[in-house]
């Protein structure tokens, strides 16, 4: 609950790493005020370089998307829908001279720390590992920048950092503040979130809390509130999951993400077939046409 102070799981010290407890993020746009403190705290703590001063014209979002130098990204959606029972001036008043409804939604996006992580599976160097708390971690000193994780993430999160930025060439993404967690600290982004839109805590607790929250919101007028946690696809759920208002597409989230490893079987099959066919063709050719 907002303003619990140091009692909140977002503030108090913990020993999840030592106790090997699965942790996660539950992010809730219905209380996010779009202050971007999470974005800034992340960059400050992790010393992520700024990646350019470009004004986008996309509402208040000048960050754009997650990437090698953006591990938290606050989205700003301007939609012609109503948020709960909100009254927004002349818009959506529902009377004669009423205009189309309007709402402004903020959501803080982050690496999903997938149950089945495409990036982790794809990594040929073993640079990407699963930590004690179930998060997915890139070991910067091992990564050789092959770039395969980039195309293997179904959420387009991880990316290779381009020159001339500091530490270029390697792949980067949210570390779930593993360094902080090891010493019992809360991830920087959750720590600074003024309204606890980002909730950090035990994965099992969060899942309960989230489903209750969705119920509560739906009862209080947010008819399009739903959880975004693809448990039914091959990704088998994400540890940083979201409550969203409306469709996943609007947030640039894939509606049914799949971990690419499910494509391996059929691909290898046709590879072997091709291999064998080539050998046979060659032998036959030499056998009958020499």
């Amino acid at each position, binding site marked *: 609950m907002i303003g619990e102070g140091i009692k909140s799981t977002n503030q108090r010290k913990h020993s999840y790493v030592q106790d090997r407890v699965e942790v996660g993020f539950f992010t809730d746009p219905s209380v996010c005020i779009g202050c971007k403190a999470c974005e800034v705290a992340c960059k400050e703590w992790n010393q992520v370089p700024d*990646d*350019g001063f470009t004004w*986008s*014209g*996309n509402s208040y*979002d000048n960050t754009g*998307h997650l990437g090698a*130098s953006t591990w938290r990204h606050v989205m700003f*959606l*301007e*939609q*012609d829908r109503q948020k709960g029972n909100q009254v927004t001036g002349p818009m959506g008043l529902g009377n004669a001279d009423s205009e189309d409804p309007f709402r402004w939604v903020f959501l803080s996006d982050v690496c999903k720390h997938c149950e089945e992580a*495409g990036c982790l*599976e794809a*990594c*040929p*160097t073993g640079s990407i590992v699963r930590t004690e708390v179930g998060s997915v971690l890139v070991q910067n000193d*091992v*990564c*050789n*920048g*092959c*770039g*395969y994780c*980039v*195309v293997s*993430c*179904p*959420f387009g999160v991880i*990316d*290779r*950092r381009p020159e001339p930025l500091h530490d270029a*060439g390697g*792949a980067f993404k949210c570390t779930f503040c593993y360094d902080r967690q090891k010493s019992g600290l809360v991830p920087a982004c959750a720590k600074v979130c003024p309204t606890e839109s980002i909730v950090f805590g035990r994965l099992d607790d969060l899942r309960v809390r989230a489903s209750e929250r969705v119920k509560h919101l739906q009862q209080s007028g947010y008819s399009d509130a739903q959880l975004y946690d693809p448990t039914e696809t091959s990704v088998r759920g994400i540890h940083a999951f979201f409550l969203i208002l409306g469709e996943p*597409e*609007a947030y*640039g989230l*894939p*509606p*049914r993400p*799949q971990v*690419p*490893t499910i*494509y*391996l079987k*059929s*691909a*290898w099959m*046709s*590879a072997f077939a*091709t291999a064998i066919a*080539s*050998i046979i*063709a*060659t032998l036959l*050719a*030499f*056998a009958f*046409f*020499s």
Partner: protein
Amino acid sequence: MTGNTPSEKRLEELREQAWKDGVVPGKGVDVAGGPIPHKPGYYGQAVVKPPVWTWQVPLYFFFGGIAGMSAVLASGAVLFHHVDLARAAMWIAAIAGAILSPILLIMDLGRPRLFLNMLRVFKHRSAMSMGAWILSLFGACVVPGLVALELHSHHILAGTLGQLIRIAAGLLIFGSAIFGTLLATYTGVLLGATAIPAWFLHRTLLPIHFGTAGLGSAAGLLELLGHRISALNVIGFYAAAVESALLIWLSVNKHGAADRAIHEHGTGWLIRIGEILNGPLAIVLRFFGLVPFAAIAFLLGALVSRVGWIMVGKVSGSDPEAVFASQR
């Protein structure tokens, strides 16, 4: 940095125009709802990340394919006593597979100095890891294989030692052949098992295409080097035939927005040209006995389509609607 719409470049034009005549017609920035989207997606941002790979990768695919399949041809050649052909093939395999390919692969890394980390782990669920091992093992067979073959064919060693060399050469060449086929085909798996719609939707086609393109290229290259035997010509026919079949398959098996990168824009053309060069055109040229031209056409086609598929990945990966379409 935001890869957003309107792009900075587009805005520069708009400003100039706005400054000139006060009005800016045309698409790119949308006044009427302001930033309210009319398409699904978040300000047109990519949902998955396009590949970061540059020119080295298609070249690697090209040479890897030639190298791998040359080893296959080499083994065929030794079996049926075309020693010179075998030697030429093994030379190609070694140069393309044990020198060019690794160099290209390393050049493509973000941190080349750490390329050895590729062999830190063996992960059968990572095509990239498998590829690294396949390439290494191929190299481990093809180089000694070539040496053994040369020693044998120049009768430098006699007696039992000569016999042993002969057997070793045989085994190593067959070894190279086995890893060679994988080297030529795994690249298809590499692209097929990703989150890029246009790639994973054609994951069964890609290995066939890359492998066969490799075979045809290897044969063509040998022919250009003067080895004009009918076996190679037949293989040339076979490869071109398969590629023509794939061309048809590709044009039949469409997925709408999900794989439009293959059929639309520049990337579409790259794929088409590539397939036509090493499919129908190659057949026709061979049919009229213009073997060298057929070989050249096929090699060109193989290269163009490799480039094509990487470009397709970039386009498809940057296209949010492709991702959404592929999941509906």
